[in-house]
């Protein structure tokens, strides 16, 4: 299990290859990469603020919850902070499991909790505005999927 919080960019392909190479007898690897998207067709850049200390703590909690809940060989979480341009990779998660169902569900779970329970805040600067991204009710609702079963 590895949690990385960093300012600089990361190479998603290299990270996926290193993660995969480190596994032993895991048949299924799932990765998710989150990329800066220009929702308003005029995004100059995005700034991500975070809470040093709590961020690592929260991500480690989410990752270890996933390890307990599914049959996983490993979990990787990388999340950037600071300034990013459109098309930059913001974050990535990867899961390794013997079975595809566990790898998929765990990655989906990691993303849902990372969205709403890790202390990151996005601010989008466009030509005309500089606004904090509002949280979405659908992201909060997504967490409920994991409260039973």
């Amino acid at each position, binding site marked *: 299990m590895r949690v990385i919080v960093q300012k600089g960019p990361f190479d998603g392909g290299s990270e996926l290859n290193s993660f995969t190479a480190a596994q032993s007898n895991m048949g299924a690897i799932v990765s998710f990469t*989150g990329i800066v998207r220009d929702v308003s067709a005029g995004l100059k850049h995005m700034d*991500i*603020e*975070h*809470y040093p*200390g*709590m961020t690592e*703590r*929260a991500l480690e909690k989410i990752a270890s919850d996933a390890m307990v809940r599914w049959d996983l060989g490993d979990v990787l979480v990388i*999340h950037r902070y600071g300034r990013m341009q459109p098309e930059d990779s*913001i*974050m990535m998660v990867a899961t390794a499991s013997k079975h595809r169902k566990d790898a998929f569900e765990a990655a989906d779970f990691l*993303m849902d909790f*990372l*969205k*709403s*329970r*890790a*202390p*990151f*805040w*996005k*601010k989008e600067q466009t030509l005309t505005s500089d606004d*904090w*991204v*509002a*949280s979405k009710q659908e992201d*909060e609702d997504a967490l409920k999927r994991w409260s039973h079963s």
Partner: protein
Amino acid sequence: MDVLYFAWVRERIGLPKEAVETDAKTVMGLVEELRAREERYALAFSDLSALRVAVDQDLTDFDASITGAREVAFFPPMTGG
């Protein structure tokens, strides 16, 4: 105790962190004290449903105890990922 502010809470209050002496027993008690200070605090804490709080880096709620806490942080709902 250190009180930390993030995102628009930080911007509204005008600083990221300050040392606060308080006898408040709960987060809510601390919020009341901060609100009473100045207009910018009152404004930042006007709608608690738009705020989240962490005590010693664990997400909690406004009824939580802050007795013995080293760090209380206020911020809007997270938007990571």
